[in-house]
């Protein structure tokens, strides 16, 4: 996963998740309080520059991660440019709606800025640190447990799916559409049975180690957490001020 690779290998890896979370939150707020599309675009640019230049995420990887979301955004803005209205014959017809352009500009730049804030957080912070951050925000333990288990098993299942697809393809399981559907069904069914068995095995393994409560890990230590958080709060405040009063 591209996001995971960046999250573990960037210059802000050892910066406190509280600081990065605060700055990303400020980015989200700035996206929504932006006074104009230009200001929201400026917020998006500043956040992207912070991620690539300050945190050292390679721009190529950044663009590859953002590409699907950007494609969705382009398509959705296109859909807002058309309107469904009654034509002269009383039927419904697609019509060009240029009056929607200002609203589209607002929505697109806001989504860009919010996406940049999300990417800043996820490309610099590995999920275990984010889970620790959520724990410090007093998210219910049962939800955190689900997150830890889900994160642990994601890679196991991704590998199982990849291996099974390779094995099915090697047996021409995906040579036709019908065969492909059948193979997908078999894959999902066998994976579901595997899930059940793995879950039971995990439960027994945990019980054998007296593990009948929440799954807790040692929290990571972050040097200068206070200073980084203070810096993030100041930078975040400046970003919000720029968005609210900036480029008109």
């Amino acid at each position, binding site marked *: 996963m591209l996001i995971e690779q960046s999250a573990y290998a960037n210059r802000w890896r050892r910066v406190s998740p509280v600081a990065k979370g605060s700055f990303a939150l400020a980015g*989200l707020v700035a996206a929504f309080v932006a006074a104009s599309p230009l200001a929201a675009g400026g917020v998006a640019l500043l956040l992207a520059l912070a991620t690539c230049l300050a945190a050292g995420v390679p721009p190529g990887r950044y663009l590859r991660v953002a590409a699907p979301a950007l494609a969705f955004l382009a398509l959705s803005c296109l859909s807002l440019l058309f309107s469904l209205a009654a034509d002269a014959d009383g039927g419904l017809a697609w019509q060009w709606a240029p009056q929607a352009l200002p609203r589209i500009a607002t929505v697109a730049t806001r989504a860009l800025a919010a996406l940049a804030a*999300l990417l800043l957080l*996820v490309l610099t912070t590995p999920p275990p640190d984010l889970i620790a951050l959520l724990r410090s925000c007093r998210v219910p333990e049962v939800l955190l447990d689900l997150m830890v288990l889900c994160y642990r098993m994601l890679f196991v299942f991704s590998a199982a799916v990849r291996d099974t697809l390779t094995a099915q393809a090697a047996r021409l399981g995906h040579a036709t559409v019908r065969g492909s559907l059948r193979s997908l069904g078999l894959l999902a069914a066998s994976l579901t049975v595997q899930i059940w068995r793995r879950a039971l095995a995990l*439960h027994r393994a945990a019980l054998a180690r007296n593990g009948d409560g929440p799954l807790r890990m040692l929290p990571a230590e972050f040097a200068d957490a206070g200073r980084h958080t203070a810096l993030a709060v100041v930078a975040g405040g400046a970003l919000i001020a720029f968005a609210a009063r900036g480029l008109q």
Partner: protein
Amino acid sequence: MHIMEGFLPLGHAVGWSLASAPFVAWGVHSLRRGLRERPERRMLLGVAAAFSFVLSALKLPSVTGSCSHPTGVGLGALLFGPLAMVPVGLVVLLFQALLLAHGGLTTLGANLFSMAVVGPFVAAGVFRAARGIGLPLAGAVFLAACLGDLATYLTTSLQLAWAFPDPAGGFAASLAKFAGIFAITQLPLAVSEGLLTVLVVNALARFNAEELQDMPLFAGRGARA
């Protein structure tokens, strides 16, 4: 489904989060109570969340600020009950935002409402109704998964139409536009998901019949299709 980060106006993002909050609280409360009685379900739900993530990561773009993919909500609702799917759905959506930049944090409430509240409750309701009128298990499972999936996407269309009413035709025209565009990708996907869910339930009935009998919607109904 999965409305992208920042796409909804602030009022809608906050409103949908508030609408989802009671279901999350209810789901977490129900999950805690369930886990006290059946602690082995904890691992199963965590593993099921990972499965749901892997399943829903297979996505197709759609022209509506959103995208289409198998949701897995029907299967989850049938196996664990609709309430358990709320916290599971929350975890899956959060990981999709954090690991794939798919969906988002500001749209988490809206996505949660369509995928983890409406979809599972519709699927469970359809399953009960279908079994109540005597449909065979395979037919009931197919209808539940298929209609649960469609309900999820219809809710997303409603959310988008409400947020972005058509300049000429208002909410109704916007709903027709979003639902129409979704239907192109979602109708075949809903049928595929229904068939896929039948295959999965058949496999479970064959290899894990005892465990299936312990699941809320299958209890005492005869799991074999």
